[in-house]
C-alpha cells in the first residue's frame, strides 16, 4: 500500500493514457467488454485521485514531489533540477478531484448517450486522452511538460468537438476552436522559451526561486496571461467558447469546462507561485479584475438572446469563469499587503470552481438528455417536457437555480463569499457580480419555462436511460450537499488549496530545491 501511495501521482495520469491506447484493441472483443473496460479505467482513475488527495491531506499539505526517471531531481554535481517532475500541492489535488469527478461521470453518461450512431472505441480513446491531459496539466511541476499537456488537451478536445462528422456545424466549430487553441498554446510556448533562455531551467520551483522582475519576465508574463486566458475563455478571447461547448456532445462539454478551469489553475499557479510579489501585483490584479468583469457581463448578456439551449448554457459557463477570475484577481491585487479578505476572496474563487463544474456539468448533461428526448435544440420549438420527464425537470431546476446563486444550493455559498470579499476592495465589483447573477437567473427561468412548462409541442418523449439519470443525480447531490454544509467542505478541500496559493510559495520551492 505504501508503494502504491508513493507512485500514485503518475498512476493518476498513466491510467487514462493506458485506457486511451488500449480502447480500440479491447473494443474488438465486443460492446460489453468495451463498456466494462471504460468503466474500469474511469473507476481506477477516480480511486487513484482520491488516494492522492488522502495522501496529501494526511501529510499536512506539504507538497509531494514525484520525479520521473530517477530518485532525486538534482543528480549530484548539477545546479539545476534536470528531471521532469510532478509536484502536487493543495490546489493541484483540488483540481485533480474535479477532473476525476467529471471524467468518471462523462464515461458513465456516454454509455447510453449515443442513440443513432455509436461513439465506439475512438470516442472512448479521445475522452480518456482528454482526461489524462487535464490530469497532467494540474499535476505537473515543469513548464515545458505543462505546454505538452496543454496541446494534448487541445487536440483531444477538438477531436471530440468535431466528432460528429456528419453534422456541418461540428466541423466548422472544430476548425475554429483548433486554430484558437493552437494559437494559445504557441503563446505559452514562446513565454516558456523566453523564461528558459533567461534562467536556463524549466522546473517551476527553480524558476520561482530565481525569478527577478526584469523586462523579459514581464513580456513572458503578458504572453502567458494572453495564452492561458484564451484557453480559459475569458473576454476578449472567448470567441471559441460558445461554439466549442455548443457543438460538443454533452458529456464532452462537461469535461471541457474542467479543461477551461485547468487553464485558470495554470494562470493562478503562475501568478502566485511562480511570480509572487516580484511584480507590481496591484496593476496585474486590476487587469485580471477588468477582464473578469467584462467576462461576466458579456457572458450573461449574450446568454439572454440565445435560442439554442446548449449555446445558452455555454455563455453561462463563460460568465462563471469571470466570477472565478474576479475572486482570485482580487486576492492577487492585495497580495502585497495581505489583508484577511484577500484570502477569503481566493477561497471563494476556488470553492466556486467545484460548484461551477457541478452546476454547469449538471446543466449540460440535462441539456443533452433534453435534446435527445425532444429531437431539437431550439428552445422555441421545445415545450412541455415536464409532463413526461419529471426527474429531468427537477434536475435542470436544481442546476439552474444553483448556478444563479439561489440559496440553499452551493452556488449561493461560494458567490456570497465572492460578493463579500470583492466588496471590501471596491463596491462596484460586488454590484457587477450580483447583477450578473440576477440576469443569469432570468435567463434560466426563461429557458426552464420554454422547455419544460406549457403544452407539449413534440410527440411522446422517450425515457431517459438510467446511466444518464445516475450521473446527473450524482452532480445534483454534490450541488445540494455542498450547499447545505459549505463550511465542512471549505475546511477540508478549499482551505488547503487557497493556502497553497496565499502562503505556499516557499513550501513549493523548498520541496524541490531542499529547504531555504
Amino acid at each position, binding site marked *: 500500500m505504501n508503494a502504491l501511495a508513493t507512485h500514485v501521482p503518475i498512476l493518476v495520469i498513466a491510467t487514462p493514457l493506458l485506457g486511451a491506447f488500449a480502447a480500440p484493441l479491447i473494443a474488438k472483443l465486443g460492446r460489453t467488454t468495451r463498456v466494462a473496460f471504460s468503466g474500469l479505467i474511469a473507476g481506477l482513475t477516480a480511486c487513484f485521485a482520491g488516494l492522492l488527495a488522502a495522501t496529501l491531506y494526511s501529510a499536512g499539505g506539504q507538497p509531494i514531489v514525484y520525479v520521473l526517471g530517477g530518485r532525486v531531481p538534482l543528480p549530484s554535481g548539477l545546479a539545476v533540477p534536470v528531471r521532469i517532475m510532478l509536484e502536487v500541492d493543495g490546489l493541484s489535488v483540488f483540481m485533480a478531484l474535479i477532473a476525476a469527478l467529471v471524467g468518471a461521470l462523462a464515461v458513465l453518461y456516454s454509455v447510453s448517450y449515443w442513440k443513432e450512431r455509436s461513439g465506439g472505441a475512438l470516442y472512448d480513446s479521445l475522452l480518456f486522452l482528454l482526461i489524462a491531459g487535464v490530469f497532467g496539466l494540474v499535476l505537473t511541476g515543469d513548464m515545458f511538460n505543462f505546454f*505538452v499537456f496543454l496541446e494534448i488537451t487541445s487536440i483531444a478536445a477538438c477531436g471530440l468537438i468535431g466528432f460528429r462528422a456528419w453534422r456541418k456545424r461540428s466541423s466548422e*466549430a472544430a476548425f475554429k476552436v483548433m*486554430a484558437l487553441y493552437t494559437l494559445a498554446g504557441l503563446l505559452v510556448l514562446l513565454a516558456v522559451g523566453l523564461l528558459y533562455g533567461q534562467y536556463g531551467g524549466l522546473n517551476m520551483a527553480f524558476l520561482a526561486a530565481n525569478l527577478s522582475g526584469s523586462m523579459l519576465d514581464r513580456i513572458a508574463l503578458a504572453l502567458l496571461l494572453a495564452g492561458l486566458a484564451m484557453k480559459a475563455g475569458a473576454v476578449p478571447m472567448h470567441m471559441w467558447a460558445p461554439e466549442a461547448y455548443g457543438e460538443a456532445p454533452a458529456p464532452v462539454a462537461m469535461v471541457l469546462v474542467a479543461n477551461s478551469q485547468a487553464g485558470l489553475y495554470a494562470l493562478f499557479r503562475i501568478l502566485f507561485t511562480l511570480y509572487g510579489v516580484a511584480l507590481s501585483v496591484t496593476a496585474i490584479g486590476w487587469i485580471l479584475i477588468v477582464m473578469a468583469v467584462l467576462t461576466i457581463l458579456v457572458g450573461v448578456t449574450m446568454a439572454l438572446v440565445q435560442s439554442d439551449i446548449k449555446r445558452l448554457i455555454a455563455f453561462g459557463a463563460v460568465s462563471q469563469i469571470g466570477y472565478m477570475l474576479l475572486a482570485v484577481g482580487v486576492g492577487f491585487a492585495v497580495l502585497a499587503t495581505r489583508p484577511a479578505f484577500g484570502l477569503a476572496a481566493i477561497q471563494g474563487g476556488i470553492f466556486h470552481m467545484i460548484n461551477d463544474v457541478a452546476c454547469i456539468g449538471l446543466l449540460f448533461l440535462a441539456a443533452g438528455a433534453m435534446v435527445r428526448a425532444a429531437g431539437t435544440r431550439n428552445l422555441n420549438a421545445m415545450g412541455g417536457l415536464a409532463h413526461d420527464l419529471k426527474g429531468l425537470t427537477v434536475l435542470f431546476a436544481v442546476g439552474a437555480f444553483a448556478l444563479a446563486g439561489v440559496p440553499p444550493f452551493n452556488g449561493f455559498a461560494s458567490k456570497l463569499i465572492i460578493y463579500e470579499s470583492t466588496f471590501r476592495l471596491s463596491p462596484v465589483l460586488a454590484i457587477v457580480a450580483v447583477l450578473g447573477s440576477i440576469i443569469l437567473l432570468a435567463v434560466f427561468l426563461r429557458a426552464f419555462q420554454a422547455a419544460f412548462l406549457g403544452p407539449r409541442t413534440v410527440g411522446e418523449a422517450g425515457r431517459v436511460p438510467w446511466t444518464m439519470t445516475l450521473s446527473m443525480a450524482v452532480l445534483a447531490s454534490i450541488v445540494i450537499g455542498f450547499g447545505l454544509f459549505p463550511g465542512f467542505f471549505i475546511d477540508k478541500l478549499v482551505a488547503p488549496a487557497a493556502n497553497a496559493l496565499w502562503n505556499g510559495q516557499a513550501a513549493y520551492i523548498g520541496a524541490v530545491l531542499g529547504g531555504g
Partner: protein
Amino acid sequence: MTFVGNLPFVVSMLLVCLGLYVLLFKRNLIKMVIGVSLVETGINLFLVTLGYRAGGVAPIYTYAPVGATQVLPTPQALTLTSIVIGLATTALLLSFAILIYRHYGTLDVTEIKELKG
C-alpha cells in the same frame, strides 16, 4: 547586443508576425492552416537559437571532437517535441478543412457562417 548577433531572434519573430498576419487576414482555410504552420516554425526557430553557444559543435558524443564546446541540447529536445505537436495539429486542422469542404462546398471562411451570435 549587436543587431547581427541577434539576427536569428529577429528573423524568428518576423516569421511569427508573418504567420499571425496570414492567420488573421486571409480568407482561404488552407491559407489559415499555413499561417498556423508559419507561427509554429518561427517559434521552433526561436527555441533552437536559444541554445547556441559561440563556436559550438552539435551536442552528440559519438565521434565528437575532444575538448570542444557543445551547443545546449535541451532546446533541441523542446523543438523536436514542438515539431511533433505541430504535425498532429496540422493533420487535425487539414482533416477538418476536408470535412468542411465536403459539407459546404467552399473553402472561403466568409461563406462558412452557419454558427452566428
